[in-house]
């Protein structure tokens, strides 16, 4: 009895030991650790990105409203959107907004980088100050712009009046609202270009410029033949990331115009919000969001192609 008990205990500890050893052994296997370490990230991404993405596609094929069971309606939402004049306006806005803002952000960002790459007093301060628009919460700085664009107390119009010009109602009529939105987007986005270009410029070997100087190349030629080609990979990635963010922008428009006046300044995201949440037609809203997908996939494809080529 006693011996068998002791045997049992011994056997149990031995078994536990082998179990413990195997567990420990498993934790020395790269594939076990690999999957184990990826688990938390994968769980979060599957639950809150992959699943909603699929769910969004399903919603877009239904007439779902908040609080009402959805019916499958096939491509009904998409068909309706394609014949909707507000949606047409939104598509035009998205391309104008992205196109114009990207060109100016690129040019201004390049100018910033070239300036900050020189030596002058307060350089550290200038570098930090220039990035400020990009790091501060966008909606909060957008509120400041809203106040600067105010129809009665606009500080711009006060300054314009000083030189005898009557300023427009910035967020009021015609093409001014979209123009005003683009200005704010440039203000916020150009530093992102500038700082990345600057970081890229600082990795270009100084010898290249010294050699060019000895050969008598002007500063302009140095820019075209050294700086620009050496910056190319940085430029591509920054451009593509920025185009995604601009095309899918929400915050600026939401704060400054809410897509108004008369739905004339919507982007995909603000229209999706207005239709999907504010008017509770969640299926139609999901369809509007998904219209961004083809454009974004093309950009994503190009980014991955560029990165792979570099590797």
């Amino acid at each position, binding site marked *: 009895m006693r011996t068998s008990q002791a045997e049992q205990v011994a056997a149990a500890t031995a078994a536990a030991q082998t179990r413990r050893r195997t567990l420990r052994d498993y934790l020395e296997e790269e594939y076990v650790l690999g999957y184990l370490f990826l688990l938390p990230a994968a769980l979060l991404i599957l639950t809150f990105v992959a699943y909603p993405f699929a769910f969004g596609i399903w919603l877009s094929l239904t007439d779902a409203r908040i609080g009402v069971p959805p019916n499958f309606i096939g491509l009904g939402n998409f068909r309706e959107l394609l014949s909707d004049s507000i949606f047409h306006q939104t598509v035009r806005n998205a391309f104008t907004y992205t196109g114009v803002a990207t060109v100016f952000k690129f040019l201004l960002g390049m100018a910033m980088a070239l300036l900050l790459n020189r030596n002058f007093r307060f350089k550290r301060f200038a570098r930090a100050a220039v990035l400020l628009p990009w790091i501060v919460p966008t909606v909060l700085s957008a509120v400041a712009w809203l106040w600067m664009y105010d129809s009665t107390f606009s500080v711009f119009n006060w300054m314009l009046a000083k030189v005898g010009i009557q300023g427009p109602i910035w967020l009021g009529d015609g093409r001014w609202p979209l123009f005003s939105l683009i200005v704010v987007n440039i203000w916020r986005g150009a530093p992102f270009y500038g700082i*990345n270009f600057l970081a890229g410029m600082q990795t270009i070997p100084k010898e290249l410029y010294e050699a060019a100087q000895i050969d008598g190349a002007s500063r302009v030629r140095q820019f075209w033949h050294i700086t620009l080609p050496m910056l190319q990979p940085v430029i591509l990635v920054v451009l593509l990331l920025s185009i995604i963010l601009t095309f899918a922008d929400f915050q600026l428009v939401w704060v400054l115009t809410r897509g108004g006046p008369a739905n004339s300044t919507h982007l995909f995201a603000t229209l999706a919000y207005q239709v999907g949440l504010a008017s509770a037609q969640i299926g139609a809203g999901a369809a509007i969001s998904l219209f961004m997908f083809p454009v974004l996939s093309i950009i994503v494809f190009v980014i991955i192609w560029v990165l792979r080529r570099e590797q």
Partner: protein
Amino acid sequence: MSSSAMTTSTMGDSSTTRYRYERYAFRLMIAVGVSVVLIFALFPFYWMVVTSLKPNQELYSVTTNPLLVRKPTLDHFLYLFQRTLYSRWMLNSALVAVAATALSMTAATLAGYALARYRFPGANFLGWAIFITYLIPPTLLFLPLTQLVFQMGLGNKLLGLILVYPTFLIPFSTWLLIGYFRSIPADLEECAMIDGATRIQAFLRITLPLAIPGLLSVGIFSFTLSWNEFLYALAFISDPAAKTIPIGVTSELVRGDVFFWGELMAGALLGSIPVAVIYSFFADYFVAGLTAGAVKG
């Protein structure tokens, strides 16, 4: 930098006056350029400060010069703390940003390390899958995600934001950290393992401490992005006591059509200061995180 400055100055010493003029003209151009850029970048912040300090009668006067403050007052700031839930929003923002950052850093450190060091089937595919997630903007997902969050009972709760924010933090954090871990030689770990350390110990005791600069970069960037997030917070939260600063300021300080500009600017200013301060202390780490490993160097 210093070498190019030296060449210019030696050229100046031995050159004619024409050269010197050209150099002065060039310097002047840079000075003007920098000033224009700085004014463009900083004017909205100046305007924020000035507005937040003006008493109302000065704020809504069309006759006085709006660029100056005559009788500065802290009334707008006091109003924020006494008559609105501003301090609560600040606390919420801080809580969400810290928790989401901690959660995403844990997940991203593990994932980044595994993808940088271990060989296992599907590793390459998983790496690219995470990268693609990085390129999906929140505006594409927010409607179904809002439905999901409310179905899970996380609507109007900070926990909802804390669980969802990592989805846009993990992808870039992971990519930045893959690069960082790859730059740390594996030999160090191999030595430790020969001395009897397990793989997990080698990771925790050898490599992780060496990755602290990368972790700082990721942490600062994640905190800033969480602090600034707007769309998810707007969609998930309507309870005033559960709002974060961006939505609290833009929704609660506007009554119908009436904008409380002094309070709005005071609120915007206070909400911007934390990220601005963090950034000014850690600018270099911040810049490293900008494109999150997508751009080398």
